[in-house]
């Protein structure tokens, strides 16, 4: 499975073969460096740790500098693991570089990112509730959630509303996976992946691009 760490650059549009204008998200992915190889013997599972986006060694604490030094590289801002099944041994060496070239024959990808934070949002925005009429005598409750429980609906099962009742609260800024997005093009020169549609997060935020299952 191909996997790379990247940064969302932004969105634009491109023409496909049929001459249709399709929305595209540009992700600057890699080059990623293999910073650690985990094995069943030493760590209990097989994985390869990769890092993306160099940072100044002076900004990192010494253990982290030493960790990346083992892979003869500088500390990375964004580090993630690629898990391998227990039986297979990952074919990677410390300090190996991974680039978008791995994606050259891949058609569809999953992109994992952190969605934009929306703050404390009401139920209409957060859960798509319908709200109440703007007029016809409706007063001071146009975007209210309505009744959250009753003795009847909960059948006297206990105090308070049901667990998981959808209410207002913090929205966004969570891990989101956009699945099965078409990979429109790969630019090995600029380390770019062009993905059809939208990718979670703001421009400049980190994301993980994997080949779709």
């Amino acid at each position: 499975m191909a996997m790379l760490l990247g940064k969302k650059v932004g969105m634009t549009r491109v023409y496909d073969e049929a001459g249709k204008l399709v929305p595209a998200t540009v992700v600057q992915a890699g080059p990623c460096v293999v910073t650690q190889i985990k094995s069943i013997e030493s760590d209990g599972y097989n994985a390869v740790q990769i890092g993306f986006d160099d940072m100044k060694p002076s900004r990192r604490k010494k253990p982290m500098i030493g960790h990346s030094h083992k892979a003869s590289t500088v500390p990375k801002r964004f580090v993630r693991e690629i898990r391998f099944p227990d039986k297979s041994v990952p074919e990677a060496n410390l300090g190996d570089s991974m680039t978008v070239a791995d994606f050259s024959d891949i058609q569809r990808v999953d992109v994992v990112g952190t969605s934009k934070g929306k703050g404390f949002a009401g139920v209409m925005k957060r859960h798509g509730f319908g709200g109440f009429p703007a007029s016809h005598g409706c007063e001071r409750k146009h975007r209210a959630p309505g009744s959250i429980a009753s003795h009847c609906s909960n059948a006297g099962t206990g105090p308070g509303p049901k667990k998981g009742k959808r209410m207002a609260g913090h929205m966004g800024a969570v891990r989101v996976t956009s699945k099965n997005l078409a990979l429109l093009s790969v630019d090995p020169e600029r380390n770019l992946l062009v993905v059809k549609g939208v990718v979670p997060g703001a421009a400049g935020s980190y994301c993980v691009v994997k080949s779709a299952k």
Partner: protein
Amino acid sequence: MKTELLEAVAGKSLKKDIPYFEIGDTVDVHCRIQEGNKVRTQIFSGTVISRKGRGINEMFTVRRIVNNEGVERIFPIHSPNVLDVVATRSGKARRAKLYFLRDRSGKATRLPQRHSKHTIAR
């Protein structure tokens, strides 16, 4: 940095040489139209009343009168379906957007002719 990368991606969809025309020109727009399996070329002719946007988002508007009814079509200049834009008559226009033509009818919709080198007489 960000814009450069985005332009590099969108730049691959841009046409190398886009035909030259000006606001107020009467143009023939050659559009590629797919009907089932057949591909044919349709010509939409009218006056260019606006041109806006940059890069891949650049669009131009062509207005003509069909059966006493104004018809406007907006074309993306870089679309592969816009095969060619041929300027056939140059019109004198003193502004960049000729939206005032929408309020006119009959003979008043014609712009005074300007003799220009880029037009190709039909």
